[in-house]
């Protein structure tokens, strides 16, 4: 049944495990939480129902930009069934996911910045009562002028949406130069300049965000929440509620999909926590779908300009990338997103000289943030489409061109990213072969075409959100006399299989069944910190921590068993729930007995493991975004059919090869690849976070065009094409059993591959995402009229960029520092040397 969709290369023995036959790792199997998910027993946040539980609703601003002059909640408070009304005065402390942008308030005190910004909360016996009471809150707003896009933000410094940032409504400006790009262009045979636009879109997890908070019997706070980052929520709660973190317990319930949308601490989480403490009763909130659209934190709309110099053979001599990023109304992860938009260009192809300038502006729309691929799909789209144009002009097959310039393994890039294994070339060769590329490219009949694109992605962010030297992930194991092992870890299950990764690794090391492993995850009281399910970090970081804890436990057990049998402990094997002498396999004990022996000898058996990423060579300011222990690679070929009369684009098939390092559970890996392809196709073809501005002479309101599941077009089962997935397994020594990420990377090549395929099919360039039939039709009309057969942005506006930080690349003798870095914020400053040029 699945042979045509799943073709995995035979596993290569990983480093440190020559010839080792794994029993769990690499074997397709039921995930440990599979039964709970298919019986409906997985307990999501909104499934929690507690005695005396009250319900909370938030009143949200109907205006995109306004001052709150006055608020009167007395009528709402008097409404029968209402227990409590909270306003900004009750929660005045500002917070935010990044230390540099603590710009949010749980309830706006005096300034609302987008339609949907919360201003008050009602807690009542019934949710319907709370909803009705919202209409009884009187808010007097002073309407302010609005800003709807970055160009308007650049042109409109006043009124400021925030009082911080670079200046006016510019939130963040970045300028970095790695080598002299102008010199690179001077050495080029051809220069390509292209402008692209990538529309914003949102995560749309099927589960709407929900939280339940209680004041524990002992007076402490517990909150269950659909969050991907319980540790960061923990920190935000402690700050805003001014409580000792030790008195707050955050339990991340399994997320009904996250994709980055549940990675910020949110208003509603803080509000129900406060309400539960005040009322001393459980308080629940579950957002409506419309409210989820207002939480957003999704893909930033990005306008970008690529200037690339190439030699006739395709070698890149220099790249200059500029981005103009629509941040929405708050910081969120935006500073990181701005750096990310320029960080990973160098990881796929060799770029000797690189300049990046990025500008994020505030606008009166829900805040953008991290969505699957965080900050990188937009420039990846531009880069891969431009490569397609370059290949055409140079008369080189785009697959061959990419093969010529793929970056080599274990190198440090121009911007000081340290790469691990790089099997991008193999990925390209696989999809070329599987898709029959050579007989299709530029050879299919009019209306049909194939396109190719590649990508790379982090296997976990190399730095935490807040600067510290502690591990990024910790695991504790408790060994039970009955032969079970409990795993305690802060890692958060959002559907990606984080629990299964932990169980699989522990079971493999200890020779037991994953079913013998009990998991206590996503709970800040029960497990050591894991930073959260973002940046594709869990498999590598929590996995390595689990691996270390399990190896340490194994060593204790082995020592005890070795004593009993009087054999060297190195000869012992752990397999089949037994510990035995590999020279005489009948000589051994059950795993449970091994635990008892160890416990008799050493006392209670518990071990810990932790993981801290290697130190990055990128020492310049901004070098904290982009480093990762290792990177995954993907190559995709997409075949499309385009109806020339309507511009309709139909994706016939997708071929994807992904450099995974090692697939810990191939069933789940394939699911991540196909899920990424799915989400990428949605972005490529139909998903859009669109806004409407009503005429100025009327209300001038700036509203989300359609905050609903119906009008936000998420592809259905009928819209999903066949996908052929190939996994390239070349274990990376930096990952547990050699594993690298898979949750995000395979999304990235889809959008440019579709655009390139549309060009192959009908000869028009759609330099904009999504690629809708309207745009294809317009480009076809241009083509027929003899004009440039293209749809896309026509200019990149003037931005006053700061002087770039100049960081000489490694091959020019650079050491990772900027040569002109004058002042640096915060603790690292002391350690940084300023080098003479």
């Amino acid at each position, binding site marked *: 049944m699945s042979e045509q969709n799943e073709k995995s290369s035979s596993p290569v023995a990983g480093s440190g495990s020559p010839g080792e036959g794994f029993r769990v790792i690499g074997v397709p199997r039921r995930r440990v939480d599979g039964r709970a998910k298919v019986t409906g027993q997985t307990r999501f946040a909104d499934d929690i129902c507690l005695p005396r539980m009250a319900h909370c609703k938030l009143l949200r601003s109907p205006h995109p930009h306004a001052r709150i002059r006055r608020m009167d909640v007395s009528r709402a408070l008097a409404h029968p069934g209402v227990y409590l009304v909270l306003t900004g005065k009750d929660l005045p402390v500002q917070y935010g996911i990044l230390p540099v942008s603590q710009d949010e308030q749980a309830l706006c005190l005096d300034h609302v910045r987008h339609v949907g910004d919360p201003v008050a909360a009602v807690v009542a016996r019934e949710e319907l009562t709370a909803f009705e009471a919202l209409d009884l809150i009187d808010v007097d707003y002073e309407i302010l002028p609005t800003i709807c896009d970055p160009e308007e933000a650049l042109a409109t410094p006043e009124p400021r949406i925030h009082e911080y940032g670079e200046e006016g409504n510019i939130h963040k400006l970045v300028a970095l130069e790695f080598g002299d790009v102008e010199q690179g262009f001077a050495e080029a045979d051809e220069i390509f300049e292209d402008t692209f636009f990538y529309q914003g879109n949102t995560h749309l997890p099927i589960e709407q965000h929900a939280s339940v908070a209680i004041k524990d019997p002992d007076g402490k706070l517990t909150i269950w929440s659909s969050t991907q980052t319980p540790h960061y929520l923990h920190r935000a709660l402690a700050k805003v509620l001014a409580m000792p973190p030790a008195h707050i317990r955050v339990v991340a319930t399994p997320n*009904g999909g996250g994709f980055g949308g549940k990675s910020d601490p949110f208003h509603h989480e803080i509000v129900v926590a406060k309400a539960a403490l005040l009322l001393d009763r459980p308080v629940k909130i579950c957002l409506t779908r419309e409210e989820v659209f207002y939480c957003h934190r999704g893909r930033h709309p990005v306008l970008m300009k690529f200037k690339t110099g190439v030699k006739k053979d395709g070698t890149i001599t220099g790249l200059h990338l500029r981005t103009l990023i629509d941040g929405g109304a708050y910081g969120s992860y935006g500073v990181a997103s701005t750096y990310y938009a320029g960080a990973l260009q160098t990881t796929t192809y060799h770029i000797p000289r690189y300049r990046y300038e990025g500008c994020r502006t505030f606008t009166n729309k829900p805040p953008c943030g991290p969505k699957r691929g965080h900050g990188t799909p937009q420039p990846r789209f531009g880069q891969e489409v431009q490569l397609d144009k370059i290949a055409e002009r140079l008369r080189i097959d785009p697959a061959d061109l990419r093969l010529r310039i793929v970056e080599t393994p274990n190198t440090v890039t121009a911007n000081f990213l340290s790469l691990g294994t790089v099997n991008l070339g193999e990925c390209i060769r696989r999809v070329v072969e599987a898709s029959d590329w050579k007989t299709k490219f530029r050879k299919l009949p009019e209306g049909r075409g194939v396109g190719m694109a590649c990508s790379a992605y982090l296997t976990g962010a190399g730095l935490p959100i807040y600067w510290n030297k502690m591990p990024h992930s910790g695991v504790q194991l408790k060994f039970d006399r009955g032969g079970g092992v409990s795993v305690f870890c802060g890692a958060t299950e959002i559907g990606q299989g984080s629990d299964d990764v932990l169980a699989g690794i522990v079971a493999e090391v200890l020779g037991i069944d994953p079913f013998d492993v009990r998991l206590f995850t996503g709970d800040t009281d029960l497990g050591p910190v894991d930073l959260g399910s973002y940046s594709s970090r869990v498999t590598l970081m929590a996995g390595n921590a689990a691996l270390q804890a399990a190896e340490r436990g194994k060593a204790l057990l082995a020592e005890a068993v070795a004593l009993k049998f009087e054999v060297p402990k190195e000869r012992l094997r752990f397999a089949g729930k037994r510990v035995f002498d590999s020279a005489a396999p009948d000589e051994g004990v059950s795993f449970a007995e091994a635990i008892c022996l160890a416990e008799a000898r050493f006392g209670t058996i518990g071990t810990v493991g932790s993981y801290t990423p290697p130190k990055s060579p990128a020492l310049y300011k901004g070098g904290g975004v982009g480093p990762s222990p290792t990177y995954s690679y993907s190559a995709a070929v997409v075949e499309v059919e385009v109806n020339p009369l309507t511009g309709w684009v139909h994706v016939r098939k997708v071929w994807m090869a992904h450099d995974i390092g090692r697939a810990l559970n191939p069933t789940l890996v394939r699911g991540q690849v196909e899920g990424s392809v799915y989400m990428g196709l949605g972005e490529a073809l139909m998903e859009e976070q669109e806004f409407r501005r009503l005429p100025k002479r009327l209300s001038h309101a700036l509203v989300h065009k359609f905050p609903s599941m119906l009008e936000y077009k998420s592809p259905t089962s009928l819209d999903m094409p066949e996908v052929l997935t190939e996994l390239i397994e070349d274990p990376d020594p930096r990952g547990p059993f050699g594993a690298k990420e898979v949750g995000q990377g395979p999304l990235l090549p889809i959008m440019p591959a579709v655009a390139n395929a549309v060009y192959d099919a009908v000869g028009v360039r759609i330099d904009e995402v999504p690629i809708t039939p309207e745009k294809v039709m317009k480009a076809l009309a241009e083509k027929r009229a003899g004009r440039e057969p293209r749809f896309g942005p026509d200019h990149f506006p003037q931005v006053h960029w700061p002087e770039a930080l100049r960081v000489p690349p490694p091959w020019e003798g650079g050491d990772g520092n900027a040569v002109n870095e004058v002042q640096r914020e915060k603790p690292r400053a002391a350690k940084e040397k300023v080098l003479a040029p």
Partner: protein
Amino acid sequence: MATLPLESQKTAQIRFTLNGEEVDVLFAPYKTLLEVLREDLLHTGTKHGCELGECGACAVLLDGKAVLSCLVLALECAGRRVLTIEGLSADGRLHPLQDAFADLGAAQCGYCTPGILVTAKALLDRNPHPDRDQIREALSGNLCRCTGYLQIFEAVEAAIVKTSEEEKETH
């Protein structure tokens, strides 16, 4: 039952068959079947993603047909048969669809899964051997954001094969 003129503020009471068991439930009459299942009967296996009929997460079987519980008044369920995810397994054994979904990666986050499973069950009840296109079509009212659907189709197909094999064995 049928002509009862209910005053909206009062409580309503109905009796219906939930997963093969007769239940009486007291609820606020404005509630949909979804709300009564989750809030009054604490059957939280049925999920919700929009409450407007735009996602399919709340699908249940009503008299054997897949419907959206967010758009069925609980008042309309008196005397009827409702099957939710909690009623899919029987005699302590998972339904073949459940086994296949768990084994083959058809459930990632698991949130759309209950609605998809009961919808797939309704499909197999009326057509035990659907082809891929028919499976696609039958599940086209259930959005899934995680899987890209392909492993879901394969799991339904695997359950069909398994069911046929089991039937052969029993005959």
